[in-house]
């Protein structure tokens, strides 16, 4: 089985966001970048599928030199091959997907894994968008995967429950937390990752379909009211919720 995984590199979740001088993007100074946390679930799922069904694994990332770190992290976990579609200019989800789809068409995987969303722009677009460009089915927000021959069955989280979704292969899967527990790279993996090459490609598509006009920080909230230090503050709280906030 041919298994592809798409990964992005994003600011660490504890990053304090500062707006850059252009007023449209994050100031990268002092920011630590990590592999997108959801993509670790995707990488782990790829490795487990390989262990169970055999085959080869390949990781693809579109972005700057920085994205090599996400590929190396995937190598350290056990992925065998990697491709970076290298672009120094900003790519929106549409552009990323077009580029991924072009590379994936060549790879022709049986299954391609994504994370549920990139935690930078929280778009939740690239998985299904790429799948559509490839003309294959997709299942998003997936918390379990079961492959039986040419049929795959997944559980997908929806509001108030789960959908049991069945699809033919090839298929795209977008991983949600809960799918698995990503392994920690061991020393052997980390050493092997160092010597593994990353193939670089030029973007095949560059026309974004969205344009960021501005980035702003949320207005700091007015200081809330502290109503007391024990249960005696409860009647006041309930009164305020009813009469001032009008929410109960």
């Amino acid at each position, binding site marked *: 089985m041919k298994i592809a995984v798409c990964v992005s590199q994003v600011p660490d979740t504890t990053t304090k966001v500062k707006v850059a001088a252009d007023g449209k993007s994050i100031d990268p100074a002092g920011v630590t970048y990590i592999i997108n946390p959801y993509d670790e679930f995707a990488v782990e799922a790829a490795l487990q599928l390989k262990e169970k069904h055999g085959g080869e694994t390949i990781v693809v990332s579109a972005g700057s030199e920085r994205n090599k770190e996400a590929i190396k992290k995937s190598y350290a976990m056990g992925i065998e091959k990697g491709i970076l579609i290298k672009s120094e200019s900003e790519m929106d989800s549409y552009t990323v997907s077009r580029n991924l789809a072009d590379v994936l068409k060549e790879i022709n995987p049986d299954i391609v894994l994504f994370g549920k969303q990139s935690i930078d722009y929280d778009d939740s677009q690239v998985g299904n968008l790429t799948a559509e460009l490839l003309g294959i089915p997709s299942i998003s927000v997936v918390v379990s995967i079961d492959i039986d021959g040419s049929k795959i069955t997944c559980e997908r989280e929806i509001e108030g429950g789960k959908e049991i979704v069945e699809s033919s292969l090839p298929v795209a899967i977008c991983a949600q*937390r809960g799918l698995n527990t990503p392994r920690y790279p061991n020393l052997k993996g980390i050493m092997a990752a160092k010597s593994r090459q990353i193939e670089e490609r030029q973007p095949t598509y560059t026309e974004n*379909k969205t344009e960021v006009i501005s*980035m702003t*920080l949320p207005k700091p909230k007015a200081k809330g009211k502290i*109503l007391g230090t024990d249960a005696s503050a*409860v009647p006041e709280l309930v009164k305020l919720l009813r009469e001032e906030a009008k929410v109960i």
Partner: protein
Amino acid sequence: MSKILAFIESRDNKIKNSGFETASTALKLANDIGAEVEVLLIGNGVNAVAGELSAYGIKKILIADDPRLEKYSTTAYSKVAAEAAKQRGADFIILSATAMGKDIAPRLSAKLEAGLASDCTEILAQDGNIIAKRPVYAGKAYIELKVTSQIKIFTLRPNVFKSIKVEGISAEIEKLDIDLNDADFNVKVKEIVVSSEKIDVTEANVVVSGGRGLKGPENFYLVEDLAKVLGGASGASRAIVDAGWRPHSDQVGQTGKTVAPNLYIAVGISGAIQHLAGMSSSKCIVAINKDKDAPIFQIADYGIVGDALEIMPVLIEECKKVLTS
């Protein structure tokens, strides 16, 4: 005149609240930019519920009604929506950012070569165009975004936009003619497993969430009881999901669910940035935490600095009293 196509989500022939929010938002925008609105309903037997949209001022309803569309299918629903957009010449497509809306919208983006602004919390009309405002970096910043393609797609964060009833409108219903073949159903929902009878955190008007400050799973009933009294849902921090007190589907935050209820009550939750990411757009936030320096107090509208185990029973009783009087 430009045209807005709004996709209205229904499940089991019930229109979701988010569907009414989408309809009202589409109408408001149409009014601001001078466009007309048509809404799209997909399912089996959906004409039975189509009329409900009249009450929200919708004049034109397109339905794709087919026994095969009874259960959701990514590929089939996306094909129907894309074909509808093409047949009707839509310039703007609006969906709710629910599990279904988020699943369909990127496929429309690919099919229609259209840019997509997802999970918008505000959309503004500007010179006949639409500017989207949406949170990025888990709500630590906002961007204003312009879609530059000919067709423009937006998904709206549920619970953020208002649904507004309008009287005296009777919608015209038109059945769409769209060819579907077996290949369109390569992926299909076989079954829906409802987690429990309770309301989902993403759909509740009131969410009461518990964290590690509750000390142990045996105290979680305090959160559930308060949620019940307030007609809401109970949620959880990741710490107690990881500890196995609660299922992952209850988790609120960056790697859990995003909620925007009218009232969010955080009980024994410190307010780590990843938790705030999932609930900071709630309209009113209450924090109960014994540490006065807990970050949750920085975004809370009201707070009590004290022991949740002592405060919660009193709060439950007081709410019962006030709500039944």
